[in-house]
């Protein structure tokens, strides 16, 4: 009888995982089902460019169903409970799905309600509707004080706030608004990025471009009436435009199923990606609380590891490789400038110089993503 692999979540991690595993296994031996509740797959990295009308958002979206390779069963439904003791997954429409292997890839959830005042005034570019709304704000911006940053840690794609800031500075310059604008960048730690050497690189560039930085700024509240943002550390900054990445947590279903830490993320083995002592339950992508960036590139490397492992195991072989925390992420550092960060658990990334080539890697990454990466080819 074929082994049943059930993947919960139809975003980057779930889709890449399903398609890669399909390439590595025979349909007769392994049945692959993905259950997810999205209609469209949005390529989130494009949000940075969409905000500045630098690309047409239509190229960043594809129908979810269309992205699964032949031989992957796709069920559009919302998962309401995961019972790892009973090996079943229940859905909103009343399905009960069983499995031999379970892979949880439910990603992140935004929790703007964690910051009083957030929803009234803060803008962001972390999903498509908000990126399009911010695009309008930016188009009509005539100068003033912009505060940009993240409300808390962790967030998806930790470099995205600095990517946005650098493009914003270029945009203002290009439109003759730089002299009429102050850009304030806030960050929760005592530097401008989590990883010290990347932080040094970014901080220097921010200083050169006249971006004012406020470190150790953990957002406590937003006061829309007085247009003021307040930190837990007692600092407050006025703004005309506030671009604030909302707080993130794991999905509610993970917490409701008793699988989560207190932020909603799943604790998995750092090297094997399995949940507790279950050797058939895994989590990948943003849903985990692993000490790696929440990035599509992370999901990609984890899918490579896990699809090889499950393919080996289902054909009776032992798989002794480990996932070493690999990530390779290209980030924007200005107009036509980018830097690719390579790292794993043992080696932090190095950022020494940026290049036009890296920028173009990023610029056309939606094409690479939809034509090869998400398909499990690359």
């Amino acid at each position, binding site marked *: 009888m074929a082994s049943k692999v059930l993947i919960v979540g139809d975003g980057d991690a779930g889709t890449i995982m399903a398609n890669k595993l399909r390439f590595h296994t025979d349909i007769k031996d392994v049945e692959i089902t993905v259950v997810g509740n999205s209609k469209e797959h949005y390529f989130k990295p494009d949000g940075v460019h969409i905000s500045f009308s630098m690309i047409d958002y239509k190229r960043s979206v594809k129908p979810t169903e269309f992205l699964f390779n032949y031989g992957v069963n796709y069920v559009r439904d919302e998962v309401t409970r995961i019972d790892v003791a009973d090996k079943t997954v229940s859905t909103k429409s009343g399905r009960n799905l069983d499995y031999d292997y379970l892979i949880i890839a439910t990603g992140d959830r935004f929790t703007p309600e964690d910051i009083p005042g957030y929803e009234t005034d803060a803008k962001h570019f972390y999903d498509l509707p908000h990126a399009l709304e911010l695009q309008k704000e930016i188009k009509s911006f005539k100068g003033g004080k912009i505060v940009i940053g993240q409300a*808390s*840690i*962790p967030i998806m794609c930790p470099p995205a706030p600095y990517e946005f800031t650098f493009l914003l500075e270029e945009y203002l310059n290009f439109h003759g608004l730089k002299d009429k604008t102050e850009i304030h960048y806030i960050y*929760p*730690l*005592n530097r401008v990025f*989590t990883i*010290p050497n990347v932080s040094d690189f970014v901080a220097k560039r921010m200083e050169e471009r006249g971006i004012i930085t406020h470190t*150790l700024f*953990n957002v406590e509240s937003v006061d829309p009436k007085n247009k003021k943002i307040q930190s*837990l*550390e*007692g600092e407050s900054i006025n703004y005309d435009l506030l671009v604030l990445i909302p707080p993130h947590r794991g999905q509610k279903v993970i917490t409701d199923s008793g699988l989560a830490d*207190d932020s909603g993320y799943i604790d998995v083995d750092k090297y094997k990606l399995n949940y507790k002592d279950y050797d058939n339950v895994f989590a990948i992508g943003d849903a985990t609380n692993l*000490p790696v960036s929440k990035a599509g590139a992370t999901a990609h490397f984890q899918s490579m590891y896990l699809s090889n492992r499950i393919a080996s195991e289902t054909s009776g072989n032992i798989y002794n490789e480990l996932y070493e925390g690999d990530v390779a992420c290209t980030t924007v550092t200005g107009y036509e400038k980018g830097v690719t960060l390579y790292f794993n658990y043992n080696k932090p990334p190095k950022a020494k110089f940026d290049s036009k080539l890296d920028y173009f890697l990023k610029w056309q990454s939606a094409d690479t993503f939809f034509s090869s990466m998400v398909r499990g080819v690359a």
Partner: protein
Amino acid sequence: MDVKPDRVIDARGSYCPGPLMELIKAYKQAKVGEIISVYSTDAGTKKDAPAWISKSGQELVGVFDRNGYYEIVMKKVK
């Protein structure tokens, strides 16, 4: 150290900025006057946590080298 912490956060094995974020989370839940202690194996916490404690106007009770980890102790004063 002779003060007994009201809350102990064991963030050993977690990497930067995990331990600091755990400390901030505990701070938000604590009452004024409580002593919070965080254990960390990440060397960065030794610098980052005292920087946060000082910026937020709390009291740093001490930074201690334990056997294979650090303990940072603070008092919530406001």
